[in-house]
């Protein structure tokens, strides 16, 4: 069961709130202090991705963030966008990043995914069990 649940309307202004809550719960759960910057960045990236998808598809549904500290610290960020939009993202190689033809949105998406994959050892992106959408699940060890 989630320790803390947060749902927010898909607006960029709320992503910071999600980051702050996510780090506060991580600290309380016992995640090592030197990992907290990575937790903050990863939760931010996952929420930014969800907000971008909801805006792209004109969805007003809230983005859901669930944080749980049973055993390890796990965070689920759930969006409600069509599944094909959310899965199969890949990090971009450096020679692609600076290409004129690559749009800023595509670059941001690729870079965001590279950050998630780079900072979260235990990362899953998968369809939600019920309904439409994907969940980004991230797990960090707790140091107790």
């Amino acid at each position, binding site marked *: 069961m989630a320790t803390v649940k947060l749902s927010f309307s898909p607006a960029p202004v709320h992503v910071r709130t999600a980051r702050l809550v996510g780090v506060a719960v991580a600290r309380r759960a016992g995640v090592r202090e030197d990992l907290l910057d990575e937790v*903050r960045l990863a939760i*931010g990236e996952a929420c930014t991705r969800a907000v971008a998808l909801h805006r792209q598809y004109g969805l007003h549904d809230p983005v859901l963030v669930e944080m749980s500290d049973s055993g390890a610290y796990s965070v689920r960020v759930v969006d409600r966008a069509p599944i094909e939009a959310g899965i199969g993202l890949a*990090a971009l190689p*450096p020679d692609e*990043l600076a290409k004129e033809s690559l749009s800023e949105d595509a670059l941001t998406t690729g870079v965001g995914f590279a*950050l998630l994959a780079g900072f979260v050892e235990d990362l899953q992106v998968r369809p939600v069990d019920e309904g439409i959408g994907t969940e980004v699940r991230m797990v960090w060890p707790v140091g107790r």
Partner: protein
Amino acid sequence: MELSLATRTVGEHTVLEVGGEVDVYTAPRLRERLLELIDGGTRRVVVDLGRVDFLDSTGLGVLVGALKRLRSADGSFALVCDKEPLLKIFRITALDQVFPLHPTVDAAISADPTGASA
């Protein structure tokens, strides 16, 4: 902490000092400021990230956008960053191979191949 932006001129270079958090909410303001500078004729830009305490993919996208614009206008663009957590972000995304990254503003200006410094 909210985003802060300040510009100063060092010789032929414009230094944009960025502070606070650059994320999906604040990055549009950074984009606007960079576009103002470039559209106003500035061609040698150094972005000093020394006081940035959070930078996400949206902010990185804005910086790459500015780099591309200046490159196509025969200008120059460099970043100043000496904080390990931020440098790690550049390494993980491979953007350390895209941006000229320097530890100080002086180093960024003296390394600029497009023109003389002050």
